[in-house]
């Protein structure tokens, strides 16, 4: 075996690195798509094999890992895990349901908005794990079918997550790879996300909302909820809100301070851990810190770690350059066509495959187009196209995003079936509407 130092070197059995890296990459993605093996196992195995066969050495592999993305994800996971103990999320959900007098359509509207707003600042899966059980509780009390509510929340989580740098993993990866800040994302994407949210809720009203009804007695049950009782730890609530506000402020001032998002999130998590543990004995501190750390989604973090190595492997072997050339050839080298092709291809593919590996692959591919289009700065519309396509495309099918599967799983356990085709019939056209709006927005504002 030879050390791989360029495309001309050979790896195991004298094979060309391009073929070996491509084979491993395709095989890894294929196994991930089958869902037969945990995705973290597959990604780490693929990454390990790339090193073992000599496509990369360990130093290159470690250098390929985007620690900024991992740090930001971990920091936000820790902050959410600590904050959830305060009861904040139940409080907001119950408060919003009561604000509309527990009317069935009003609750659907409010829970969608709450989910979208939470999702803009939290991971989508975390958001639905926090809000869907409250929705199920409220719909059970109202004695209305939960399916329309859960459907709306799936859409809201994926749409809301698209609005900011920290709302959805694809945006975190894009931001980290390009240096685009929280404000860049908010200014570029939030306007169209608001429009898409409204454009999604209107059809949902006509499909389900206008038919929903509940008896006065059942509505009184919900109105009888005391949201203040949902706050289980007022001290922790104040500490959490303070830290979340400071972290978001840190993101907003990123350009001025030059502090990277991972540092802001990890430091925020450390401050919240400190505040939560001040004055507690060492055993309680160990227990609290252990609980917060163990509840982080390590599967997701390890999955990312493996993917970064895999993508760097095919990048070094030359596959990314070949793919970029292929895409440019297909679009005739036209910038506008390339941007819109990325939007649509990302949306359709993300509806069926995991958008995280897809975006991990697309990032170096888009970067490789910089010389053709006049440098890195000119690529900005392509990044927004990728973000909108990859994040919103996840709404298209039940397997399009992790949050969709989590909601379906919770619904199944609560006795509400989520069928692939039943979901697809309404979701895919709605997803296409969101992509048409994104298309128009990109064309109007950036192309």
């Amino acid at each position, binding site marked *: 075996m030879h050390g791989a130092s360029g495309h001309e070197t050979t790896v195991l059995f004298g094979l060309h690195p391009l073929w070996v890296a491509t084979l491993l990459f395709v095989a890894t993605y294929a196994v991930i798509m089958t869902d037969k093996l945990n995705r973290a196992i597959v990604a780490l195995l693929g990454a390990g094999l790339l090193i073992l066969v000599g496509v990369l050495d360990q130093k290159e592999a470690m250098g390929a890992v985007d620690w900024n993305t991992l740090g930001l994800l971990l920091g936000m996971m820790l902050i959410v895990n600590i904050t*959830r*103990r305060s*009861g904040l999320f*139940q409080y907001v959900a*119950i408060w919003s349901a009561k604000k509309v007098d527990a009317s069935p359509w009003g609750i659907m509207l409010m829970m969608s908005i709450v989910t979208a707003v939470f999702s803009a600042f939290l991971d989508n899966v975390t958001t639905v*794990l*926090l*809000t*869907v*059980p*409250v*929705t*199920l*509780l409220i719909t*059970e*009390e109202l004695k209305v079918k939960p399916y329309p509510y859960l459907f709306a929340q799936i859409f809201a989580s994926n749409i809301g997550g698209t609005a900011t740098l920290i709302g959805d993993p694809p945006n975190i990866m894009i931001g980290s790879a390009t240096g685009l800040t929280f404000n860049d994302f908010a200014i570029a994407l939030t306007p169209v996300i608001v429009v898409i949210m409204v454009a999604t809720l209107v059809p949902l009203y006509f499909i389900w909302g206008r038919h929903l009804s509940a008896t006065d007695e059942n509505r009184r*049950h919900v109105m*009888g*909820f*005391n*949201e*203040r*009782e*949902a706050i*289980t730890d007022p001290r922790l609530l104040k500490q959490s809100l303070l830290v979340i506000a400071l972290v978001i402020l840190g993101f907003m001032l990123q350009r001025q301070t030059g502090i990277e998002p991972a540092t802001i999130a990890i430091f925020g998590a450390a401050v919240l851990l400190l505040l939560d543990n001040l004055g507690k004995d060492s055993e309680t501190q160990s227990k609290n810190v252990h609980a917060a750390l163990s509840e982080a989604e390590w599967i997701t973090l390890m999955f990312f770690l493996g993917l970064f190595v895999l993508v760097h492997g095919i990048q070094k072997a030359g596959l990314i350059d070949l793919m970029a050339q292929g895409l440019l050839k297909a679009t005739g080298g036209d910038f506008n066509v390339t941007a819109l092709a990325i939007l649509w291809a990302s949306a359709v593919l993300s509806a069926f495959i995991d958008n995280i590996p897809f975006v991990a692959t697309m990032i170096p591919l888009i970067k490789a187009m910089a010389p053709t289009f006049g440098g890195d700065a000119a690529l900005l519309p392509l990044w927004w196209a990728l973000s909108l396509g990859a994040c919103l495309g996840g709404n298209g099918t039940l397997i399009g995003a992790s949050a969709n599967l989590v909601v379906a799983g*919770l619904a199944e*356990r*609560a*006795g509400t079936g989520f069928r692939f085709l039943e979901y697809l019939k309404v979701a895919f056209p709605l997803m296409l509407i969101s992509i048409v709006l994104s298309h128009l927005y990109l064309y109007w504002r950036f192309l």
Partner: protein
Amino acid sequence: MTTPLIYNTVFPSLRDTDTLAEATRRMLENHVSDLPVVDGAGRLLGMFKLERLLAVLLPKAATLGDGVPDLAFMSDTIEQLRERMREIEGAAVHQFVVEPEHVLHADTSPFEAVLLLYKGANAIPVFAPDSRTLVGMVSARDVLAALQPAGAK
């Protein structure tokens, strides 16, 4: 050489056609929270556990992970809880039967029983050697009784 397990051979049980109302009555009468469910031949079909009954009384959402970690904000009264109980008390216990988490055999070491009880088991079914025929139940109470000096009550 192991000491024969000390277990209770006289124990309350349920048939799978019994109702929840009957199950709760027997739990109260016998001061137990887990009851074995057996067929006509005395073979164990599973366990009816109080926690399953409590889960049915709760809103489903409260039993799904950490999403609704407490229900202090709900204003329902004990009468509403009774109403929920009345709605389900006619259901047959077979809908709620679960596999026992642990089983012992009549010749198992008593230390194993003590270990399982220490780990939180309430009542453990005891089978005849090499069969699923239920011959007894062992609970912490049975172990305590067995630990008393000979002749002591």
